[in-house]
């Protein structure tokens, strides 16, 4: 199995929720396992409501949170054992995050190009500013922007959609093989949402980048994902091919989720279904 891109083996995360004298414990993620193939890029979606543990799981995959039990292997080696800085840098060059709120992901007091240029310098060894700008521009073009457009701008001077695209471009600079996107479009306007969702598709097809896509929106999940896992209160209740699972879910919770999705057929055909 060592050729798998990412292996999540029985990962559990327990938070203690008591004061000084201890208190109840809370299992945010409970015995989750799945693997991502290395040979073919795919979009692997984690679906669940708030409190289902999907964000904690994504934080563990990004090595921002250490699991209480189980292991996460990236290309065969356990990421929790990355001690040396160079090992961590190599990991980060291959696995990059996209966060939910672009306005929070960028420091409001510094210009956006600082993150692009630093990523270029630190991961791709760009020595001169021109070289770093060229790399940044190259990545920005992949998301439909250009360096001149966003250079020396503060985050609040760009729209949510533009800023999220800059975030994606920044993640693309080191040429990662895995992007972990936590609800990347929930804060973006509807008209721009499709542009970014389609972008993930092109990243998979043209750049061969695998994507872990975290969302509570089943409809977008259906549109974009290859494989899917449904999480409830930290546990995986159902998993498999995205279209198959969403078209006829087996687990009662997945069925409940699907029936709660607001469909348009009510207004297109009959009266409002209760």
């Amino acid at each position, binding site marked *: 199995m060592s050729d798998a891109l990412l292996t999540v083996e029985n990962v559990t995360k327990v938070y203690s929720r008591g004061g000084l004298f201890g208190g109840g414990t809370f299992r945010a993620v409970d015995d989750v396992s799945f693997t991502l193939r290395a040979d073919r890029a795919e979009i692997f979606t984690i679906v669940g409501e708030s409190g289902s543990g999907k964000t904690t799981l994504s934080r563990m995959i*990004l090595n921002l949170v250490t699991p209480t039990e189980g292991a996460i292997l990236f290309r065969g080696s356990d990421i929790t054992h990355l001690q040396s800085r160079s090992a961590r840098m190599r990991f980060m060059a291959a696995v990059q*995050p996209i*966060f939910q709120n672009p306005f929070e992901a960028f420091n409001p*007091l*510094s210009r956006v190009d600082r*993150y692009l240029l*630093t*990523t270029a310098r*630190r991961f791709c060894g760009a020595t001169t500013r021109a070289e770093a700008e060229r790399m940044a521009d190259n990545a920005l073009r992949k998301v439909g922007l250009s360096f001149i457009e966003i250079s020396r701008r*503060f985050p609040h001077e760009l729209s949510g959609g533009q800023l999220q695209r800059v975030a994606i471009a920044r993640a693309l600079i080191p040429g990662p093989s895995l992007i972990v996107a936590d609800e990347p479009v929930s804060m973006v306007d509807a008209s721009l949402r499709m542009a970014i969702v389609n972008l993930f598709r092109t990243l998979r097809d043209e750049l061969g980048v695998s994507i872990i896509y975290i969302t509570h929106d089943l409809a977008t999940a259906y549109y974009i994902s290859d494989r899917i896992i449904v999480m409830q209160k930290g546990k995986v209740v159902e998993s498999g091919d995205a279209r198959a699972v969403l078209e006829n879910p087996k687990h009662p919770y997945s069925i409940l989720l699907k029936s709660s999705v607001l469909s348009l057929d009510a207004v297109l055909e009959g009266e409002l279904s209760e």
Partner: protein
Amino acid sequence: MLRIIRDLFRYNLEFALGSILTGIVVGLAALSFFSPYNPLDTYLLPPDVPPSWTYPFGTTSRGQDTFWTLTFAMRNTLLFGFSVAILSRILSLLIGLISGYVGGFTDRVLMSINDTFIVIPLFPLLVLFYFVMRDYMSWALLALVMAFLGWAYDARLIRSIMMSLKEREFTRTSIFSGMSMREIVLREHLPYVLPVVFSTTLNNINWSIGLEVTLSVLGFTNLDTPTVGTMIFWANQHSAMVSGVWWWILFPTLFVTITFIGLFLLAVSMNEYIDPRSRLGRMGGGIA
């Protein structure tokens, strides 16, 4: 940076007033370098001369020119206040940073110790310290002790800012952009911390000058060095009020009050500048 200062000056009343008042006081202290008299010599001039053209602030019962003595007093007091503030910043920044960043158990331990220093009344301790040291007491030692006792309030402030910055999403973006922890603190977090450090420094200067004046007036410091506090002490010693030498009391009290208000206004204006939203507003942030 200058543009920001100019903006602040034009649009922020507290900053403008604060800098004028502080400017007056610092100017007065600077004049001490041009004083024709040596501050330690007494009985050079006719005593108890009311303010006049020759002696703008009059002369004291000890035959000194009130104006020139005040310039030395102001210089020493400001120097003392500044040095205590700088020393205590080192402690509050250190403890605030460590507690904010390390978090968990260390944070809880550091903060409970920190809270004790906030609660304990410091004046009796300083008096006890003077009483026990008496003639071994020097300005440097007093500054050290006050710095050691005066960092707690600001350490908690800096710690809470650190805690919130550590949780901000852009910290994680910086990590994944390859920035080292040191670089993140210096380039991403410092713009949020500096204004707080600056405004707490100003408040700390006020705090230490206030204590210096109080201790000196009671005679609990080295009474030979001219400071605002010792000046008022000698005025009381010669019961200036009773004998009508009002100017000996008025001018030191007046100018030290100007110092307090000036520094305080600067600190308040700095607080307003701290809030990034208002700074963004000033940079013409858009309206959604």
